């Protein structure tokens, strides 16, 4: 590891961005553990409906499928934005990132709509253990996606004002890791929460 022998000023920008990518990867792994424990909590609590509404009454599969598609296609458009940035095509990268942002915003909007509908019909997080765990797990993911959307806007701004410099490219790469990671967590959510919930 070069970091242990040389100070940061002795390293090339490429070494530093690789180190940052590795550090970010470690963060993602810790985040995966947080989500895994929220999943475990949900599975334990999922039968604790306290006489309130169950997943069968609350979950609407076509909406979940729509959310899944938005997030999946946003993951693909982010991938193409990464490719465009690597080909030094800043314009295409910005357009693809904005498309990713729109898809991600659509996802958050659908989720907020779902939460509002549930709270309005008396199925808020305070109704039962099942719903507390549901809102905690799905809400934590939604918050992560919202933070990801802000990061996408920041990177778009940096590409526009600073150009595709080495630090900007390295930030874009890390936001991409975050975004693809959130899509993987969503696979867990629809496979553990929504699909078994309506069986």
């Amino acid at each position, binding site marked *: 590891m070069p970091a242990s022998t040389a100070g940061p000023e002795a390293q090339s920008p*490429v070494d530093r*961005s*690789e180190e940052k*990518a*590795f550090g970010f*990867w*470690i963060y993602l*792994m*810790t985040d*995966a*553990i947080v989500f*895994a*424990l929220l*999943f*475990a*909590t949900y*599975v*334990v609590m999922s039968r604790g409906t306290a006489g309130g509404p169950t997943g069968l009454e609350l979950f609407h*599969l*076509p909406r*979940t*499928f729509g959310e*899944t*598609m938005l997030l*999946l*296609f946003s*993951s*693909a458009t982010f*991938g*193409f934005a*990464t*490719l465009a940035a*690597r080909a030094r095509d800043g314009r295409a990268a910005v357009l693809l990132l904005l498309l990713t942002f729109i898809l991600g915003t659509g996802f958050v909007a659908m989720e907020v709509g779902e939460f509002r509908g549930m709270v309005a019909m008396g199925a808020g997080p305070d109704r039962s253990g099942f719903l507390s765990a549901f809102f905690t797990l799905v809400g934590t993911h939604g918050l992560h996606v919202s933070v990801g959307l802000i990061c996408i806007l920041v990177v778009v701004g940096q590409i526009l004002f600073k150009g595709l410099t080495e630090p900007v*490219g390295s930030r874009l*790469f890390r936001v991409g*890791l975050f975004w*693809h*990671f959130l*899509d*993987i967590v969503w*696979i*867990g959510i*629809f*496979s*553990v929460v929504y*699909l*078994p919930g*309506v*069986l």
Partner: protein
Amino acid sequence: MHDASAGKMPTARSYLTGLALALVLTAIPFVLVYFKLLAATAMLLVIATAAIIQIVIHLKYFLHINLTDAPRENLLALCFAATLIFIMVGGSLWIMFDLHDRMVTPFEQQPPSLH
């Protein structure tokens, strides 16, 4: 190399392959559950299998993690996280469901008490 930490260089092909496979692996469980085509146990099995395969697909085609040329430290961190998750999630579920089973067993079915 710009992103040696990402393992192999991503290509448009890898993102499109990943997208196509992910679409199929998402569609299968949703269609089966929506039209109720299987019994509940078989359905859960298909959902779990499709999810695990899709996670591997995402890791490979979107995050470009694979067993041969991904950086060693990244793989190590991933394996360590997976081990922790297995112990903590598996342990929590084991303990909580065991406790649950003991709590809801009707009084008559419990082993005779000592007095």
